[in-house]
């Protein structure tokens, strides 16, 4: 299908001082478009690296027969400029610590990615940004986000991530720095957004509640992707 994820023979190594270190090693992965997938694993197991790879911020090691495709879009052969544009259009990113520009307002933060492609932002995108913020319960859209609560900031970040109706949503521990009630709110809205926008969602998280809402669960163990075990996510 159009938005299916194909991974084959993907290895990712980093320079660690003198030596190179293998961070990820994934022989095969297929994920149909629209799947909601949760990923967990120990710190340093390569979760963030996997998300960076999937959005084309970094490339896998050069090797024969390796493949990293979203539908027809082959990230490995795509030139860097095209990959940037592709990421801007097709991927929404949500981070643990929100990564907003604190001196820009909520509306400006949401519209910022639009300024990468447009000189003057089309009215239609403006309208969509306002709708998204309203839907996510952000009322003070003209106030610098530096003064927002953490839950509000994460919701602004979510509105920014889905502005262009991406086919892929990547979230790196989106609820880890939120309290219980905000985490619940963000979880609900993330799943809602993924459903209503019809995107593939990959979430790195250790929250059982969030995993419970996913179609599939993966466990990363020193760079190897294994299917998740239910007992890993039971509260201890």
């Amino acid at each position, binding site marked *: 299908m159009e938005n299916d994820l194909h991974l084959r023979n993907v290895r990712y190594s980093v320079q660690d001082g003198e030596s190179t270190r293998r961070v990820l090693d994934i022989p095969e992965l297929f994920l149909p478009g629209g799947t909601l997938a949760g990923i967990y694993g120990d710190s340093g197991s390569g979760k963030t690296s996997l998300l960076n790879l999937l959005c084309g911020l*970094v490339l896998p090691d050069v090797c024969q027969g390796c493949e990293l495709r979203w539908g027809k879009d082959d990230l490995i052969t795509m030139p860097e400029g095209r990959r*940037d544009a592709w990421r*801007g259009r097709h991927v929404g990113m949500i981070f643990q610590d929100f990564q907003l*520009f604190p*001196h*820009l307002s909520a509306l*400006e933060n949401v519209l910022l990615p639009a*300024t990468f492609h*447009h000189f003057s932002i089309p009215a239609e995108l403006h309208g969509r940004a306002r709708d998204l913020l309203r839907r996510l319960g952000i009322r003070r859209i003209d106030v610098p986000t530096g003064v927002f609560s953490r839950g509000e900031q994460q919701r602004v970040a979510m509105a920014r991530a889905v502005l262009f109706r991406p086919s892929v949503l990547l979230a790196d521990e989106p609820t880890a720095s939120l309290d219980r009630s905000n985490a619940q709110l963000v979880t609900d809205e993330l799943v809602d957004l993924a459903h209503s926008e019809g995107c593939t969602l990959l979430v790195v998280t250790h929250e059982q509640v969030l995993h419970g809402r996913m179609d599939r669960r993966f466990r990363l163990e020193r760079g190897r992707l294994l299917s998740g075990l239910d007992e890993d996510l039971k509260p201890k």
Partner: protein
Amino acid sequence: MNPFLFLRGEFRRSWGGALALALVLAFAGSLSPAVSMMERSIRAGMAQSADAFDLLVGAKGSAVDLVLGAVYLRPEPLELLPAGTLENVKAHGGIRWAAPLAFGDRWRDYPIAGTSSELVTLDGKRPLASGRMFLNTEEAVIGAGVPLNIGDSITPSHGSVAEAVLDEDGKDVHAHAHTFRVVGRMPATGTPWDRAVAVPIEALWNMHEDGVGTGRCSVVVVKPVTVADAYRLRTALNDVDTQAVFSGEVLTRLFGTLEQMHDVMLLLASGAQAAALAAALVSGFFAVAMRVKAMALLRALGASHGFLAVSVWLMVSGIMFAGCALGLGLGSMMASAASMWIQSETGVALTVSLSFEECLMALSAAGCGCVAAFLPAWFACRKTAGELLRSA
């Protein structure tokens, strides 16, 4: 693409630093336009002051002192000419008018010049602004800037302006017994003569009965009929006791010195500006290094290398451009202030104006800055997403 939204956020975040940097650039960039504007206005003001003084005849000695004394009324000690020089000069012919000049007295700190009516009105070419010409040794005509009215009486004091000494009662210890009545006022000329009190030269001779100079003067101002006459007169009047100089020629020599000073100062000022631009450039690199996290985020959100490069370039060159423009304004203000001070000190009217030359200097400095701003821009966009992520 439109980097201005991103830049707006960055400006809100660090406008203080940006402003400080622009001000440093403005101060450094204000010196060279100020120097260049001052030099031009001093040159024009001095040349204009010398307009009426084509040919000066004085005792042998420094030509520069002669011009400074006669044209700018500086208290230079001038030797007296031999008696009968004025008649001797007039006898050469080819002269429209010739007038004697003698100094040595003052009213308060306004110099008194003993002369004849020809110099006061340039032989009728420059009528008095009000009142009439002095007719006897009790009358005086004042310059436009002397704070007296027609009808006032003044008591001159002996000694040049530099020697004024007041006693405890505020009375001048060198006061003469003689008094003058003001009968006329010259029009404003924008020259040091606006501060002068002109009296008949005979009055000075009377006041100094000790015989200091009866029948003698320090300078004869000559207005030749033609240019050929001027050169002939200069040759003829340069003899054993006297020298004849074109004030314009002496000024050209003075300007030569002024120009050398100007060049040296301009060199120093340009050095300061270059140093400030270099500092701004280094700050540009620091700004990029400080924003690694923000840039990694922009890349993750889909911004291209170009977007980062344009943003950094606009940020750095915008500060440089603003600094240079501010510097031009600041330089104009400094030159105006300095010329106002010089004018009040010397009476030489100076008009400071911004010319194409200074604009070009500021523009080329800003241009260099904008070109140099490509370096941090390149530095920013050269980093791959991976590198940015690692350092973020």
